[in-house]
């Protein structure tokens, strides 16, 4: 790029390049490295094999989230392999001098929930984690993305990462969202337009009046799912909403440092006239409550639409995968999903488990009761979210509505810990992936917003939440 006009992404990237390798990647400095129990043990073992330590242990933060139970966390983990893996994290953090918010710690929680709520995530940073939903932190105007375990080891060893600079994409959402439409619907809508692999090789900036009007937590939901269209990450320029959110948080800069920080953060925006490799603009008024019908997050429709048919497919080569997907889900092309009975509702995950999500759900279900066929589980993203919910009395409202409020963790999002959806059952879920078996072998996942999930739990069948809101 010859122009001196830079995108937000370029500004942050350029400020972190330690050196560049000719015909190769850049060496990027990583400000904060988040780790968890599942993708770190082999990296620690690698360091030991090389006989080296963690280069900047103070720039690494650990928590246990993927492989933890969400019930009785005060007891030892029952499943031996899970317990061993979580213990291994504790042992490694102790050995290498890394701060750990493990089970029982008041800051424990899903890695992408605790970073922001603790004020660890700040604008202009580079953040990586061995988890593809690291893009969540992009909501603050950070370059944040998921890495593999070899790269986790690389960052531990050097606080740097070799990365080729991705292409840039901007997605603008202009206008006002209708009642009952949440930021989860925005991102499901975007992915349905761009497709599961459509943003591979790109870093996305989300912009436009509809994005600007969102709260930080709603912005996190959008950035969180950038990977579901293949993008390595997504980010949003920081503004007063961002600065107000950060102010006063545990590890955020304080006093003069905060003012100095804000002055710097105000320089983090895409310059007028800077160009993107690709740009899309959508009208917020066209977005309705969304739902997925297939086995990847790109297979989404407006909740009142019909499942597409093979004739609707853009490419002939996708036919076999499309048919395999519908067969797995037990749906027919052309079906409508409205009124399909659902026995499982999961509200949680790094996409939708923050306090605003819990408040929205509690507010909606207050005075109502879940349908008798439904198993409704709501899992807070962190201990702080759980405690806040209890302080606000949300736990009582949820209990009276027949929802089970659990303890924090990734829970039924990924079918790794003990929270799973049984084979063949449908689950309406606020998580981020509807892959085959994602929530347990044979489980059938439909991705939705927290409001659509709550409405479905109340009626026991897939429901357009707008009908209940207007009633």
């Amino acid at each position, binding site marked *: 790029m010859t122009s001196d006009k830079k995108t937000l992404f370029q500004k942050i990237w350029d400020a972190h390049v330690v050196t560049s390798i000719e015909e190769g990647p850049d060496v990027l400095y990583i400000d904060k490295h988040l780790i968890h129990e599942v993708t770190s043990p*082999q990296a620690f073992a690698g360091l030991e094999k090389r006989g080296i330590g963690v280069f900047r242990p103070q720039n690494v933060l650990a928590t246990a989230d993927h492989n933890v139970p969400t019930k009785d966390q005060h007891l030892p983990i029952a499943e031996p*392999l899970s317990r061993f893996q979580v213990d291994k994290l504790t042992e490694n953090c102790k050995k290498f001098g890394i701060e750990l918010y493990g089970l029982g710690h008041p800051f424990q929680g899903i890695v992408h929930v605790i970073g922001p709520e603790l004020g660890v995530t700040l604008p202009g940073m580079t953040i990586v984690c061995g988890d593809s939903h690291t893009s969540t932190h992009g909501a603050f105007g950070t370059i944040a993305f998921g*890495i593999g375990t070899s790269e986790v080891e690389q960052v531990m060893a050097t606080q740097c990462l070799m990365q080729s600079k*991705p292409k840039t994409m901007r997605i603008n959402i202009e206008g006002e969202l209708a009642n009952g439409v949440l930021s989860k619907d925005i991102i499901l809508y975007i992915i349905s337009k761009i497709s599961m692999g459509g943003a591979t090789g790109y870093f996305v900036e989300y912009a436009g009046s509809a994005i600007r009007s969102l709260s930080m937590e709603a912005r996190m939901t959008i950035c969180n799912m950038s990977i579901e269209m293949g993008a390595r990450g997504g980010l949003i320029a920081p503004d007063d909403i961002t600065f107000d959110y950060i102010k006063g948080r545990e590890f955020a800069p304080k006093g003069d*440092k905060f003012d100095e*920080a804000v002055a710097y953060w105000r320089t983090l925006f895409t310059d007028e006239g800077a160009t993107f490799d690709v740009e899309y603009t959508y009208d917020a008024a066209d977005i309705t409550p969304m739902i997925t019908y297939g086995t990847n997050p790109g297979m989404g429709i407006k909740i009142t639409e019909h499942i597409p048919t093979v004739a609707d497919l853009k490419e002939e080569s996708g036919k076999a995968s499309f048919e395999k997907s519908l067969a797995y889900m037990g749906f027919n092309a052309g079906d409508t999903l409205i009124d399909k009975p659902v026995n499982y509702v999961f509200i949680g995950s790094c996409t939708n488990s923050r306090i605003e999500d819990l408040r929205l759900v509690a507010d909606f279900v207050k005075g109502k009761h879940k349908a008798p066929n439904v198993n409704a589980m709501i899992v807070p993203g962190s201990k702080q979210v759980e405690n806040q919910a209890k302080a606000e009395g949300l736990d009582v409202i949820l209990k009276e509505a027949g929802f089970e409020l659990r303890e924090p963790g990734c829970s039924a999002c990924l079918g790794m810990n003990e929270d799973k959806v049984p084979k063949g059952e449908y689950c309406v879920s606020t998580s981020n992936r509807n892959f085959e078996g994602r929530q347990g072998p044979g489980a059938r996942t439909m991705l939705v917003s927290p409001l659509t999930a709550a409405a479905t739990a109340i009626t026991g069948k897939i429901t357009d939440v707008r009908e209940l809101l207007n009633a």
Partner: protein
Amino acid sequence: MEKFVKITSTAVPLPIEDIDTDQIIPARFLKATTRDGFGDNLFRDWRYDNQNNPKPDFILNNPNFSGQILVAGKNFGCGSSREHAAWAIADYGFKVVISSFFADIFKGNALNNGLLPVQVSESFLATVFEHIFADKNTQLEVDLEAQTVTIVGTNISEKFEINQYKKTCLINGYDDIDYLLNLREKIEAYEKTSKYLSLVSQDQEVEA
């Protein structure tokens, strides 16, 4: 890391698009703390039923197809960043995955484990599938030095792209960490200029 220069092998065809890493290795098998043994659970839920019996219609259970090359539909390796997916494919015995499109994180993970992701055109991929299904003994030659993939015994061949730095690493068996460890002075010099580190310096002292 093991060196990769050139291989000639039969291939296993898997013409499904958007194969995500949850299919390659489901999360419930990610509890191990070493890199070994993931090949046993490669494509677990496509390969075995819930009684652990092999599903006869899945390609890895079809005795007609074997080899060190996996040929898959486009957007291979999407979804979760789990490097266990690359470990599982390599542990099973594959050295190369050929597809018309790869997800970013998977591609990086594969390269870091000496597993070569070869991206070819849609039409070339279709031709490769046709040849393998017509003759299970079809051999493919993947030459990293020349950056070509060829259907052996024909003149059908295609060039593929690879980052030159990564190519050098694979051919010589180098890994990124060896390279980065030699940059320590540059990294420490960078830290002195870091805006972020200056903003949080009241909470954490950067070592001189």
